């Protein structure tokens, strides 16, 4: 299973997330993806082979298995994880777009550009404000929607979160009602409940992060509305600090800049 590549992509987004976002990412990788790969696959590995029906009628087992498991738990979780991780890409793309714009400004030699080195642009961490705030908030909203949809789909398809030991099947070509036995029902129930619990924790973390971002947004707005005079000074202080840092960096990296511009 190739989740390593997803880990690489999402790891990059980690830098621009809030603290709650970082916790969410950790929970996702350790308690969901790792558990899925390391444990759940082993438990569900023999699900069809060891699904046994009390009949010798050829085809009955196949049909009953298909009837009770339209889509396997493990595949549904894999899809859920893929869909839930995807909104973070929106943030990654937005950050990449901003970096691209800043690099273009830098290459044009724009006086407004406060960076002295292209490496600085690459390593810079963007604050979650302005349009990036909207992208980030939308990504959290989509994550919530996907989590909820998949949890509901799970509940709807399997009539709850318990895995029964015995299922009664009378789909054709089974001659009459036939008893079919699921392999490892208790272990599967334990893992199902574990994954549902972790999904719920992820939903709570996303809700908390959403509330945090909204609170921050409204506080910032009320600050701006209340103190319009102080705001430019505050910005100027930050700019002077950044300029001082840039001068220090430029002094030590003079050759790099000359080499690049030629």
């Amino acid at each position: 299973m190739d989740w390593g590549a997803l880990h690489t992509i999402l790891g990059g987004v980690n830098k621009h997330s809030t603290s709650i976002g970082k916790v969410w990412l950790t929970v996702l990788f350790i308690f969901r993806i790792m558990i899925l790969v390391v444990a759940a696959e082993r438990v569900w590995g023999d699900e069809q082979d060891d699904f046994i029906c009390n009949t010798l009628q050829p085809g009955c087992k196949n049909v009953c298995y298909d009837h009770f498991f339209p889509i396997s738990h493990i595949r549904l979780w894999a899809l859920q994880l893929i869909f839930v991780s995807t909104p973070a890409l929106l943030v990654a793309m937005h950050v990449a777009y901003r970096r691209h714009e800043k690099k273009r400004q830098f290459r044009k030699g724009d006086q407004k550009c406060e960076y002295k080195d292209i490496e600085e642009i690459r390593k810079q961490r963007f604050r979650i404000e302005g349009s990036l705030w909207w992208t980030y908030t939308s990504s959290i909203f989509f994550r919530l929607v996907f989590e909820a949809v998949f949890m509901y789909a799970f509940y709807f398809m399997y009539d709850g979160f318990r895995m029964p030991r015995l299922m009664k099947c009378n789909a054709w070509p089974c001659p009459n009602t036939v008893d079919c036995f699921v392999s490892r029902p208790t272990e599967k129930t334990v893992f199902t409940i574990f994954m549902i619990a972790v999904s719920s924790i992820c939903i709570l973390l996303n809700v908390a992060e959403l509330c945090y971002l909204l609170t921050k947004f409204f506080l910032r707005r009320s600050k701006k509305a209340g103190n319009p005079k102080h705001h430019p000074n505050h910005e100027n202080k930050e700019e002077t600090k950044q300029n001082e840092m840039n001068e220090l960096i430029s002094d030590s990296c003079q050759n790099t800049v000359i080499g690049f511009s030629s």
Partner: protein
Amino acid sequence: MSWGFLRDLLSGVNKYSTGIGRIWVAVVFIFHLLVYIVAAENIWKYEHDEFECNIKQPGCENVCFDHFFPVSHISLWALQLIMVSTPSLLVVFHVAYREKRERRHNRKLYRSPEEIDGGLLCTYLTSLILKMGFEIVFLVLFYKLYNGFKVPRLVKCDVRPCPNTVDCYISKPTEKMIFLYFLVATSCLCIVLNLSELGYLIFKYSIKCYLKRYIKKRQ
């Protein structure tokens, strides 16, 4: 199956793409390749072993499986992934050729070897058209080979050496159908992305061309 090479190729292509191109790479990577590796491969893993016919006649099951699945869904899916990712190599080769030329002549021949203009634009547009073509071809192939995108639970087989018409049961038909529809949806999305990228590039460069001519005329 080692898809690491395809993953590296797609990441490399990302550098020379437009914004829509990057979205296309992300969609192919996550919804096509990752879903294939993580889920689809396992569903179709034992498809032949789990294909069961209501008969004890030796050879009948083999012959019926071969009759109904001349090329397995999963093999077609893998082929589609490879064919759709390959035209991007044209762009990579062209950029490498440009950089080699600049090194050979030891001076700057292009504004930037990676910028999509002139010859590279034609290569890029060709790769887009090829990608779209392959996606459409594979979708049509899927449709024609399997009479639509449905996977039936039961197929009736009367190929020799099966003595009469025999019932054969396909394993996990519903799960296979769900993932096939997922594949079709992703392919359609990729075709739409490629079309918009094509439209965007043609529009952008025709405006550029028109403006250049207009400025020349005024001068």
